[in-house]
């Protein structure tokens, strides 16, 4: 590697001039290759090939609310500390653990395919809570849900239940 070919010594020439024979030039390329590998590893480690994942949400335009029958409305309320309460229509809210939410959602939706889910998260709650719940909805194949602000009335209902 890295040897440069030079012309082969030509045959004996006339005259007594001494021909300076050029030697095959050998270049040490090891440092260059070292640097190349260094750069290669650097670029391999810094390149991020994957783009981040996203979750798509469609919110309805402002105009026109839809009337929903009370029995088809399931309300999920999330308190500031992340506790989840659910109820249908105007029942008393019941507490549910996040792990059991998936079963609950699929069960309720099987019983009533027309069910619409309304999610109310406390303003002081965590953003991650909302993402987790929306993710649960996606996993449970619930496409009809809406987000609503939590009002004082909701807080009073929750306060009554949790005592």
């Amino acid at each position: 590697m890295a040897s440069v070919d030079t012309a082969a010594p030509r045959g004996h020439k006339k005259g007594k001039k001494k021909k300076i024979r050029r030697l095959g030039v050998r270049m040490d390329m090891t440092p260059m290759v070292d640097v190349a590998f260094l750069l290669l590893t650097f670029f391999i480690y810094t390149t991020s090939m994957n783009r981040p994942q996203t979750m798509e949400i469609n919110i309805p335009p402002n105009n026109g609310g839809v009337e929903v029958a009370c029995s088809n409305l399931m309300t999920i309320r999330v308190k500031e500390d992340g506790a989840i309460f659910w109820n249908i229509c105007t029942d008393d809210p019941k507490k549910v653990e996040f792990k059991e939410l998936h079963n609950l959602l699929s069960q309720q939706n099987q019983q009533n395919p027309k069910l619409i889910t309304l999610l109310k998260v406390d303003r002081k709650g965590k953003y991650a809570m909302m993402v987790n719940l929306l993710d649960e909805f996606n996993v449970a194949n619930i496409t009809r849900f809406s987000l609503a602000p939590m009002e004082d009335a909701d807080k009073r209902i929750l306060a009554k239940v949790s005592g």
Partner: protein
Amino acid sequence: MDMTPFVDVAFLLLTFFMLTTQFRPPEEVQIILPQSHSAIKLPESNVMTLTISKDNRLFLGFDSQFMMAKLFGEENKLRIAVPVELGKLGDFLIRARMANPKLRTVVKGDKDAEYGITEDVMGILQKTQITRFNLVTDLERDER
């Protein structure tokens, strides 16, 4: 041992990685993303990113320097996002949509951000007729 082919391949890879790497300017804030099972990829271009930081500050950013310069002035051209007040967000969104109607809106919130500010942001998005947007999340891996 003749190492020439090996080195050739190394250089080929080197040029490949050098040409494909895109260097990003440092991020304005560090965001820890929440996790979800959604596997939709982030759109590649025409992205408008609304970043909500852990301490509930709001940043608006675009993926093209042209849009950044147009909305926030030449001095902010190279930044990735600019802090925006909640009250002025609506104006910015309308101006951004006028400059580039193909914009896709992406909300990138820290998992510890307050829900309240997200609610306000979604309210503003709704008011400005952006009814479809994406939430950036990390892929959650578990067995289901």
